[in-house]
């Protein structure tokens, strides 16, 4: 389109009268090499910022809500994988809860002899898994939350003189306060098989590879995963107090929902035991009534658009203001001192009228 064409009466002409953007006829404008360079830099900067904005838009924001479960609860699954430094035949597993029920866990638990392996473990109080904790954002939760039915296979026993027992499995318990415990045979519950265990044989050193509530997601990190406790005296009572917080992760648009439980844990090693407190490993759990719902959300599209446009507009305006000032100074004080076109007649936003070298 020729810019010098006369006024038309057609649609084009009518549309043209709407043009609110001042363009200065080329005869009045000049172009400078600095201006070109700045424009290129500016475009690159804009692309960079847009890229960042797009990234944060698609990454979404996490929104947390506190919810009180409005369904009537029945049961809850416990997944565990614990290795105790005692032969399987001497161990007794049980769950007792506030409803008065006793889960005969021994019938559900897999018990297999293995080595007592302390590599890859740490004590509960040691913060050695900061990396895993940091990796706790929604995206990685969704990536790692792959439900599994089976536990990994037990490693073959290499050292027959240090027998240990791996207890693992998933079981349903009442969704009430309860107590999951591993005790020595004949030390907490009367057992007819009396010959098995003496006081000296009791060593409740243990490694917890998995202890979680709800569906079994092997890759999700729990506070007790990888925790080891080494005990050098017998007749030891090792207690964990676990507070379970029901947690729901909802991905953007509700496409993926993961219903799981997080928990907080404190431990209490107790060297002195009495008949009412038999030795063993006791995991006492309670369920918090207030659950957490973590939802992935995106900024509304229009808001995102406004932000994008603001960023671009801001840059353009700022540069338009900044560049002539710098340019003027450059001209005035370094390049052509005294002998220059009078810049005073220019406005600050007016980058159209620039002096060329």
């Amino acid at each position, binding site marked *: 389109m020729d810019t010098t064409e006369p006024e038309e009466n057609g649609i084009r002409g009518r549309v043209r009268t709407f043009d609110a953007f001042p363009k200065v006829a080329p005869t009045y404008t000049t172009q400078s090499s600095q201006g070109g360079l700045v424009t290129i830099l500016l475009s690159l900067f804009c692309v960079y910022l847009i890229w960042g904005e797009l990234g944060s838009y698609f990454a979404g924001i996490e929104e947390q809500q506190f919810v009180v479960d409005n369904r009537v609860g029945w049961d809850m699954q416990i997944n565990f994988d614990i290795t105790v430094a005692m032969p399987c035949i001497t161990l007794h597993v049980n769950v007792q809860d506030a409803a008065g029920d006793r889960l005969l866990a021994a019938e559900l638990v897999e018990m297999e002899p293995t080595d007592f392996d302390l590599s890859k473990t740490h004590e509960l109080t040691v913060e050695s898994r900061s990396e895993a904790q940091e990796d706790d954002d929604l995206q990685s939760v969704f990536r790692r939350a792959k439900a599994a039915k089976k536990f990994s296979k037990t490693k073959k026993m290499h050292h027959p003189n240090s027998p240990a027992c791996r207890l693992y499995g998933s079981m349903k318990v009442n969704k009430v306060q309860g107590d999951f415990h591993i005790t020595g045979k004949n030390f907490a519950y009367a057992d007819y098989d009396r010959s098995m265990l003496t006081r000296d044989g009791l060593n409740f050193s243990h490694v917890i590879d998995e202890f979680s509530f709800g569906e079994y997601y092997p890759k999700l990190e729990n506070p007790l995963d990888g925790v080891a406790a080494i005990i050098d005296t017998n007749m030891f009572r090792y207690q964990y107090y676990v507070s379970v917080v029901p947690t729901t992760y909802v991905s953007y648009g509700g496409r993926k929902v993961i219903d799981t439980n997080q928990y907080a844990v404190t431990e209490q090693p107790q060297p002195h035991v009495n008949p009412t407190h038999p030795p063993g490993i006791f995991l006492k759990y309670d369920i918090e*009534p207030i659950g957490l719902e973590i939802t992935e959300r995106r900024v509304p599209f229009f808001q995102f658009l406004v932000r994008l446009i603001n960023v671009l507009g801001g840059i353009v305006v700022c540069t338009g203001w900044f560049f002539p000032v710098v340019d003027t100074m450059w001209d005035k004080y370094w390049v052509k001192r005294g002998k220059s076109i009078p810049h005073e007649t220019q406005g600050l936003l007016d980058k159209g009228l620039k002096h060329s070298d």
Partner: protein
Amino acid sequence: MAPRRRLTTFDAFSKTVEDARVRTTSGGVVTIVSSIIICLLIVSEWRDYRQITNRPELIVDKTRGERMNINFNVTFPTIPCDMLTLDVMDISGDQQTEISHGIIKTRLGPDRSIISSESLDLLKASESAPHLDAGYCGPCYGAIPKEEEGKRCCNTCDDVRNAYQEVGWAFGDGTGVEQCERENYPQRVEAVKHEGCNIAGHFSVNKVVGNFHFAPGKSYTSPTVHVHDLNQYSSSDVVHTFAHEIHHLSFGPYHNGIINPLDGAVKHTTERNFNYMYFVKVVSTRFEKIGQAPVDTNQYSVTSHERPIRGGRDEDHKNTMHARGGIPGVFFSYDISPMKVINREERPKSFGSFLIGVCAAVGGVLAVATVIDRGVWEADKALSRKKTI
């Protein structure tokens, strides 16, 4: 330099002389399109400004010595009202046995038709015996302590029942007890045995751990035990069960934002000795709606549990061993969470930030449009120059 000229330097809105201005069709199109975009963005900003968001907050509940109302409406289709008692007890030692104030029991026929509805206070008054002479002193059948012998009279059937209850004896259906036969108590028991009962109302409890239960027979409480007189319930030739339907159970005032999980729960059983247990965790909740007074109420989460009194292995989950003992009934054991949820409705944007948003939208769009417009224009110029060459 003249002062006016110096001021001109600061003019951020320089104007191009009309001769130097160029209007193009592309510019016009860009203007129209950007105006439309601006309108859309302003509308969306306005919506955003008017939007009410719910911002939940979690605080530690610092209120003390509060009491809490429990509202309920439960139907027991196979237990007559006379047999049913409601007791409340909590960890502070407070006990409210056989609560009657504020509670209405409705007798239901076997087909669930309403026979009569009565507030329990009235029932007590009608049971007095006005036709007896003033000097009458009925025997209590040995159901009073030795030292009170001869000083205390049991003039009505209810007195005898209370005396029996105080010493912890089972009462039965009242045959052979003079006062009860006079009041036709055995016949009454016989007459209502096919009936059901709807019990509804509210009572107030301390906001501490506690439990309330619907159980058969009068209850007897000593510092160490709480027992119910199960004689009538278990010796009746009609099988009474604790099958029940919870129409409503809530803690604290009504608010339409609360879903009470137990509303509408129905439990069936044909077993006489069956125990239902609900583990309720109460969470204080405050609703703050825009333009409304805040409402302090409670939400709850609940876990349901049921077992036969004889204990033993569960029929569906073979690995679960139920405890043995206890009494038939429906038990609600409630626990109070230390945390309080505040559901606050608010408008996240003030009018000022709405204005800022509008300005930003307009300014941003115009700035970008300027760039596009210039780009189009320059491209167009370059093309036409090529053509002319």
